[in-house]
Each structure stands twice: as C-alpha cells, then as structure tokens.
C-alpha cells in the first residue's frame, strides 16, 4: 500500500529573504538563508527544527505543529500531549509494557453492553445478573459522565480490549483515539538520573498482573471479559516498557531532566501509594490521581520556571532592568526553593456551593499561574527552543541544555552577542511567521520581527501565531487531568470563574504522600504541600484546612496551641 502523498507546504522564500534583508539592515547583523535555505546569523548556520522528508519546494526547517523537536521538550515532557480522559493514562502504560502491545481487538463497549447477558448462565437468575452486571460495570468502567472507558483494573483487560466511543446517533461503537501521553510517561516520571526505576515500574505492574487482591465478583468479571474479549492471560513487563523507550529516554535526558527533584518526588510518592493497603479499585484510582497530580504540577512548574527564565533572557537581550522575580537557574534549592512552591493558592471544597470572589487568592493565583504562564507554555517552549538554538549557533552551549541563566548572563555582558542574538531571534520570528502564514509578504514578515528586542519579537510572534491552539497543549490537559472527573480535583468552577480548590479525595491523597506514613507537625505538612506548589489561600484557609483535617480524622491536636497539631495518614 502506498503512502498517500501530502500537499507540500510552499513558503515564498523570496519574501522571507526580503524580510531578512530588512532585519539585517536594521540590526547591522547579517541574517539570511544560505543556498540550502538554512538560516544563518552573522554567517553562522542555525540548526532549526528540521522538516522530515521535505517535498520539493519546502524549506528544510519546520516551525509549526506540535512536535517535540519544535517545542524542545527534552528532559521536560516525554511527548507533546493533547487532552484525553485521565483513566487512559495507566491503560497506555500497561499496553506499551506487553510484548504484543496489548493489541486486543474487542471494544470495551462490547463488554459494557454484553456483561449482563453473559452473567445469566453463571448466576442462573436474570434479576441478579442485571444488578450484579450493573455493579461490576460501575466498578470496572470510569464514572466520567461523557466517556465511560474500561479501567485498567487488570492487565488481561488491557490485553483483550480497546477503548471505544459510541455514536449518539447510530449507537455504533468504534475504536477511540488516544491523544494523551504514551506509555513512555511512566519510565519518564521514574527517571532516577541515570535510568528509569524498573523495579518500581514492575511493582506497579505486578499489582495489576495478578489476581490476589480481587474478590469473587472481580474474578467473575475477568472471566466474562476473557470470554468476550477472546484473549488469554497477559503480563505487563517493566523491561519491555523500558527497552521500548530506552533510546528516546536516553536522548531526552542526555542534558539532564528539567526538574530531577520533581521526578524523584514522584518515585517516592508512587512507593507510598503502592505501600498503602488499598483495594484494587482504590489502587487504580489513586495511582491515576497521583500521576495526574504530578503531570499537572510538572506543567505548572515548567510553565512558570521557563516563563521566568525567558523573561530574564528578554530583559537581558533588551539591556533592560531584570524582572522583579529572581532568575531561576536550576533546582539546587530543591522543590521548596522552586518559584512554584506555594504559588497554587487553594481553598477547600466542601461539596456544597461556595461563592468565590475575584479577589480571592484561589482565583487570582489561578489567573496568574494558569492564565499568564500555563496558557503560554507552548509559546514559551518554542521561543526558548529557538532562542537557545540561535545562541548555540553564536557559540553557546548545546540547545538541549536550556541554560537560560547562562544566556541571560552572557547577553548582559556581551553587547556583540546581544546584537547578534536579537538579530537571530528577529530572523527566527520572520521564519516562524512565514511558516504559519506562507502567503505573507515581506512587509508582514518584517512587522513580525520589528518589536524590540528581537527575543521579544520572537515570543510575540509565537504567541500570536499559536494563539488559537495554545490551550490544546497546556490548559486543556490540566483541566482534563484535575478538573473533569467527579472526584480528585484541583480546579473548581463557579460559572465563568475558575479557581484552585481541592476536594476530599485530593486532600486525602496529599496527606498520604506528604506524610508518607509519618506523623507530621501541621507546619511541616504545609511545607510538604509547597513542594507540589500548593498553599492554603490565606491564614483563614490554613485554619479551615486544619479543621477539615481534624474532622476527617487526619489531624490530632495535642493542645490548643497550633504548634502541637499533627497530620497523619490513616492508612
């Protein structure tokens, strides 16, 4: 079968060259496309994200789309995801850990619809089959209203079935697509600095491979599922998962992780959850929630840190005073030293309606963090990637190192570098604009590069050109992970207003992972929350948190004095 021919992306490089000539004239630094249409700055070629298999007439670079190479996600994110149901996260990890990739052909909708009928011969009572079938479906399928998907309660299910979507009109089911992270997410999050923690991955898989923690009805469900799915026993294997992605991971982490302390924290937290005595359903729910929490926090951390770093680079490129926020170098200060610590100011959900004021820190911190930073994350990543590639062309380190503190420092002391860097960024803005608007003429392209400094022009153009779909690679994912499900939330909504609000399930999870089977003074518990960026929105909320924990039996007061209050996990 021949691969369908795609339409070539034709960019008028003549207009691009004309715009670059204006940039050269204005900046006094020669920027141009060489004979191979590669960008050069002061005569030095810039290694821009390459176009795979370019068709005749297409330039060798490609500055649009959602590819890792353009967003420069190495060490920060395993892939560039799109939002999807969070229950599929663990499913995909198991699927990728099976030698035959879990290529079951049966649709989960067949199981959902056929279970009750398959129970009748076993239970010999249609009424019992109806009620028990309903209970088992509630147990094994997600509770999300608009998408009921089979949960990864056992490896055999993942092996035998595929997630499906059912047409509202025809009622027919078809395989559902998947857009969130692939199975690489697990070894990525469990990267220990040298390799993925295979033993911990296997611990998680072992939990889902065996039947020991299942009750009679769970086993009955699995037997019926095996019949309907027509598939035998399967085993998820950490070796297989890791070897499948090892090359990608080694490449991604070649220059180190974006935040190794955050990855180490995930490993600790996963260990804590796996150490907990949980039923199978609770274990699957808690692991999914834990992964969702860490991915969400990783998105916020990446958006805030990279955003701040880019602010400093742009200020240095413009020879302007540095922004008020301190520059962020690396994680030498640990998670508590990260600018994200305490930035997510939350309130406690009560399950009942509570009004929210626009002045409430739970809303203002959402606006600042989510609106100002997270939404701009794709644009920030693209700008950082292109800026570090330009610096590399001008003599800087490998772009994968993302040494933005070094870049800002170099720009501050070296005026020649500053000129060349800004010219390069302005030129990249021209190319970027042309990639998104191939029909743009030289004037429009120059307009994109005109704002000063050039680094600012580049960021502005990326923001402008990607404006419509920025949320797809940022806010939508976080919303899907921690706002869409009925339980386990970080985000709350009152009408048009969104704010940080944690519900009971999230609070219980946080107590579990922060305390990690220890009993902690309340103050230390609050410090522990800061590692995840979380802090009560104000002093009163802190008291409400203590009261809530006490009501939940998770806090003991040894005296009326606040310092003698302890948080502990009941597991």
């Amino acid at each position, binding site marked *: 079968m021949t691969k369908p021919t795609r339409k070539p992306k034709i960019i008028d490089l003549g207009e691009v060259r004309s715009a670059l000539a204006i940039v050269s004239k204005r900046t006094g630094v020669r920027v141009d496309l060489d004979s191979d249409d590669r960008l050069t700055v002061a005569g030095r070629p810039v290694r821009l994200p390459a176009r795979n298999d370019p068709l005749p007439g297409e330039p060798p670079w490609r500055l649009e789309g959602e590819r890792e190479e353009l967003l420069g996600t190495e060490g920060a994110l395993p892939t560039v995801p799109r939002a999807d149901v969070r229950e599929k996260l663990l499913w995909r990890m198991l699927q990728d850990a099976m030698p035959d990739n879990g290529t079951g052909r049966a649709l989960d909708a067949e199981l959902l619809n056929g279970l009750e009928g398959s129970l009748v011969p076993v239970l010999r009572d249609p009424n*019992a089959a109806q009620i028990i079938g309903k209970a088992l479906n*509630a147990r094994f399928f997600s509770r999300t209203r608009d998408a009921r998907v089979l949960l990864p309660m056992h490896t055999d299910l993942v092996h035998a079935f595929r997630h499906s979507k059912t047409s509202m009109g025809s009622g027919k089911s078809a395989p559902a697509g998947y857009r969130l992270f692939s199975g690489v997410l697990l070894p990525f999050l469990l990267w220990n600095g040298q390799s993925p923690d295979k033993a911990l991955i296997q611990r998680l898989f072992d939990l889902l491979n065996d039947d020991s923690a*299942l009750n009679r009805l769970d086993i009955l469900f699995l037997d019926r599922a095996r019949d309907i799915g027509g598939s035998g026993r399967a085993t998820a294997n950490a070796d297989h998962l890791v070897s499948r992605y090892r090359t990608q991971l080694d490449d991604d982490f070649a220059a180190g992780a974006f935040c190794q302390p955050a990855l180490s924290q995930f490993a600790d937290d996963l260990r804590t959850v796996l150490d907990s005595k949980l039923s199978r359903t609770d274990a699957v729910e808690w692991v999914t929630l834990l992964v969702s929490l860490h991915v969400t926090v990783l998105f916020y951390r990446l958006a805030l840190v990279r955003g701040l770093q880019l602010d400093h680079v742009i200020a240095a490129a413009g020879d302007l005073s540095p922004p008020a926020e301190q520059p962020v170098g690396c994680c030498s200060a640990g998670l508590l030293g990260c600018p994200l610590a305490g930035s997510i100011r939350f309130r406690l959900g009560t399950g009942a309606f509570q009004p929210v004021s626009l002045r409430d820190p739970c809303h203002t911190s959402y606006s600042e963090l989510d609106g100002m930073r997270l939404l701009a994350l794709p644009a920030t990543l693209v700008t950082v990637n292109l800026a570090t590639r330009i610096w590399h062309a001008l003599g800087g380190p490998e772009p994968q190192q993302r040494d933005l503190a070094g870049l800002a420092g170099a720009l501050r002391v070296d005026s020649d570098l500053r000129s060349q860097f800004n010219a390069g960024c302005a030129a990249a803005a021209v190319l970027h604009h042309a990639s998104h608007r191939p029909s743009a003429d030289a004037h429009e392209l120059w307009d994109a590069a005109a704002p000063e400094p050039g680094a600012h022009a580049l960021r502005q153009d990326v923001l402008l050109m990607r404006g419509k779909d920025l949320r797809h690679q940022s806010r939508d994912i976080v919303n899907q992970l921690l706002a869409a499900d009925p339980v386990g939330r970080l985000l709350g909504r009152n009408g048009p207003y969104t704010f940080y609000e944690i519900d*009971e399930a999230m609070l219980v999870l946080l107590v579990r992972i922060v305390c990690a089977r220890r009993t902690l003074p309340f103050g230390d518990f609050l410090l522990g929350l800061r590692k995840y960026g979380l802090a009560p929105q104000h002093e009163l909320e802190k008291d409400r948190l203590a009261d809530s924990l006490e*009501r939940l039996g*998770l806090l003991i007061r040894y005296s*009326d*004095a606040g310092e003698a209050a302890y948080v502990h996990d009941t*597991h």
Partner: protein
Amino acid sequence: MRASSPGAVVSAGRLSELQQRAYVRSASEERIAALLEAPQPPDLVVLSGSAGSGKSHLIQVLHERCGGQLGQTITDATHAESPDTEQADRLLGFFAPFADGSQRPGGPTRLIAMNTGMVLKFFSDAERRPGGHPLSALKEYLLERLGVPGAKSVGSRPDWLEDAVLVVNLDHRPTAGSPGSLLRPMLESLDPAKPDGLLRGAERCETCLVREWCYPRANLEIISSPTAVDVLDRTLGTVALKRGREIAPRDLWDFLAGLALGASARRNDPCDEAASLASKGGGDAAEQLLDGLVVARPLDHPDGDLAVRVARLDESFTPSSQAHDIIASAGISPPEDARRLRDWIGSDRPGTRLAVERLAQAVEQGRLELSGRYLARAAWLGGYLRDEDESSVDEFRRILAAVEREIVDDELLEMRDTLADGLARAFGLSVGPETFFPTDSAEGETAVLVKASLLDDTATEMCLGIRRDPAWRSNGIGSRAVSYRPLGLHVDLGGQAVQITYPLWTLLQQARNGAVASSVDLERFHGLRRALEEIGRLGSTDPSRPLLVSDLESGRAFRIARQSLLGKETLRASEVYPS
C-alpha cells in the same frame, strides 16, 4: 480575666494581687508536691501544657510548698513558641545533665515549664546546633510521655530516665465537668459578696446608688450561684468532651469574663456603664440593661471559641418540650414572665441581683418585653431546664471510666455492641444477623460489600477491639498527678487505631437507632470509614466470604456466596432485603 489582658499571663515569683486571688488550688498541686517530697524525688520535672494552662502558677506554688527540694528552675521557657539563641543556650545547659550517655544526675529536682510546641522546637533545634549536647534519649522520652509522635533515638534509652524525669501535662488536667474541677471554685469566687472571692466582697458596691442598673454584678451573682455553677460546670464539661480536649484555665476565665461583662462592656468600666444607664432611665435603659444580662447578649453574641461552643449547647435551643413550653408561652402574660424571671435567676437575698428585680418590674408593668429565648436561658441557668444530653454524656463517661478500670461489664459489652451496630448501619448493610461492609471507597449507585462481623469475626484483625487510653499507657504517673481523664474511646479496627470522641459516639448511637447521618456528619467519620475500608479490603480477598451487591436506584440487593456441588464450585445469588 480576659485572655487578652496583660494580667492573664503569669510570671512565677511576680504574681499580682489579682492573680493571687484568682488562683484556684487543685489536687494536682498536692500530688505533684508529694512526688517532690518523696524519699526518691525525680531529678527533673517538666511541666508542659498550652498557654494559660497554669504552668507558671504551679511553679510558684511548688516553690512556696517545697522550695527546699527544688534546684534550678526555668519558668520563662513557656512564653514563646521557639527559643531565641540565648534561651536555647540556657535550655541546653539546663538539660545537659540528662544528655545521652550520662549517669543519673541526682541532686535537687530541676523544674521547667515548657509548652508542647517549645519542647518540639527546642529539641529539633538542639539536634542541629554544633557542639550541643546530644539529647536524643531525653527527647524521645519526653515526646513519648507527652503522647506526641517523635523520631526514635538511635541508641538505647537509659533505664534511670523512668525514675528521674517526671512529665506533667497540664493540658490533661480536668477543668470542668468532673468532681474537683477547677471551674467550680472559679465560679464560686466570682460571688461579689464573698470576702475571699475575686472581688473581695465588692466593698465599692456597698455605697453604690445604682446597683439595680448594674448587670455585671447581677451576672456575677447569677453565675456564682450553686445552681448555675452546676449547670455551667456540666455544660463546659460537655464542651471538653465534645472537642476531645480539656479547657485551659485562662480560657475559662476569659469565658467567664465574657459572661459577666458581655462583649459590649469590654471597653468600658462596668461602673460607668451602670451609672450611665441609671442616669438615662426609662425604657431604653431597661432594654440595655436586659441586653447586658447573662441570658441575653453574652450568649446571643458569644465572644470567643469557648463561648461559641457553650452557646451551641444552650439548652434553650434544644428541641425539648420544656424549652418549647417556655418559649411558646412567653409574652402572653407579662406578670407571669416576671414571676418566672424572678424564680429562675432572681434572688430572695436582699440587696442581691437587683438588676434582675428591676427588669422583672419593667416586664410586670409592660414597659419591657422579655423574649422566650431569654426566659428559656434563665430556666437553664436556674436549673429548671433538663439537659437533654446529660444521660448520654454520663453514659459515655461511665464507659470511658470502665475502660480505664479494665472492667468488662455489661455496659462495656453494650457499648461495643452499639459501636459495631452503629458502624454497620452507618457504613454497611445488615441482612438479618449478617453485616456487610464496602470493599472499596467508591461511592455510586451500586456497591459491592463483603460479610464481616465486627464482634466475633473469625479473622481477629477484623474485630472491633478496645484499648486503654494512650496517655495512661505512656505516662501513668504524670497522668495520675493531674487526675487525667480520657475524653475519647480508643479502638482497633482493621488493624488501625481510631479514636471515638463523644460526637462520633452519639452519631453511631443515632445510626444504630436508624438515623441517617448527614454528609457533614459522615465527614467526621472519615477515620472510621478508612478503617472499615480496610476491613472490607481484607474480607473481600477471602473467597469463602459472602458478598452483597446493592443497587440504590432499584433498592434491590443480592447476596452472593460460593457453593460447592458435585465437586464443582458455583456462585449462588439470592435476593435479600437489608434492614
């Protein structure tokens, strides 16, 4: 008397005259003094407790009583949550004889007052100070005695610490609701006519011409009366029981000040207030006088956490026929209202509670209307309104006492039945004699439960166990010294230790009687819910245990059990009807 006033903080050795008058002696001092005067006294006494629990006062009393036996004393370690450098050095020096590896120091007993937070902070900081004495054994010992979880020390603990160090936690001192409580003499000392009371006979009032306008005096006379003392002592004892912690003396004084003066009089001299009302006269003044009376504003607008808790327990709000009768009949006959006011909080003693009499006259003459709520509160303070919770509170206290005495009697067995039944009804389902508990934490239309018996399950870890109070177990001598009484039941459930406080106990009682707990109530059950989930988890993996599937929507439930027939295993589902 106010917790916020400078006089609320006691400095040992520098007690003001008012502080000396306010001091209430308790049996604890005698017991601690006896320990100090014993042939082999402790080498170190640590008095802990939160602010206002009476540590400094106790130190002064102990010095007066047995100063000869006492060595170095530190009283000011109490007045901060963390020590400054100078203070930390002083504390390090103080504790140096008890450093790891030392022999028992002996010598006169060292005495120190430290709140619990200071103990935690100091010892955590001490571990990090260069050149400091290693105090890990002492730290572990103190935290254990205080019932606070702490890191285990690396080495073994010297045996002599048990005899050498006495920890007395004044937060454990019963202050209300028990024989010999501190509150009773505190209330009695408020009687203005008492020569040795807080007001020293209130000589100033003798020549006062406006006493009938003085609601603070009337309030003091009312709340120091024997009946009101009983009522308030019982009520505050219930407050302590409900929150699971004793009330600090300073908080009690603060509460009593609020009752006597009301929030509106905090800024004014009460005498000026009375003079102002007298000069104003008329209906407005009468209304203001009524507003200041203990039955009105002080409980309508409670000032402070304790007052709020007491106001919640106000019997006039309890849905009882007595309270209803009083409130419903108020305002129909003003003379009858006046009579009831006089009967309940008035006085036969001439010259006392004059403000009540003035108000009664105003009501009688139709110049003032008395709300039913105020009358009901007067009945409550006058001992005419029965405490609806009283029998339940007494029952819970009897159970706690029985556990401490380790006496397995009918009441204790009945209590265990109540707990097991209440838990089954609140969290599980009962089908005939069988009880079923959820196998996971999921909440939805359907539930899968597993059979378990909290009373006599074959798996012992799934049975409901009762254990002695941890304070008694960890610090018997110190607990005895302060007449410690447990305020909660400690049970083992699914291998987890859970405390059942009085509010939980009443909820479980109600659940046993068929009441459906609200979601707010259920939140309080969280610890129990988790413990029961563990029972469900343990039970569900045992294939021999029957399961129950329940569907809330249709109200139908099926019991599923494994059966073996002709050498083959099969599942038998039968419809059941949970009670």
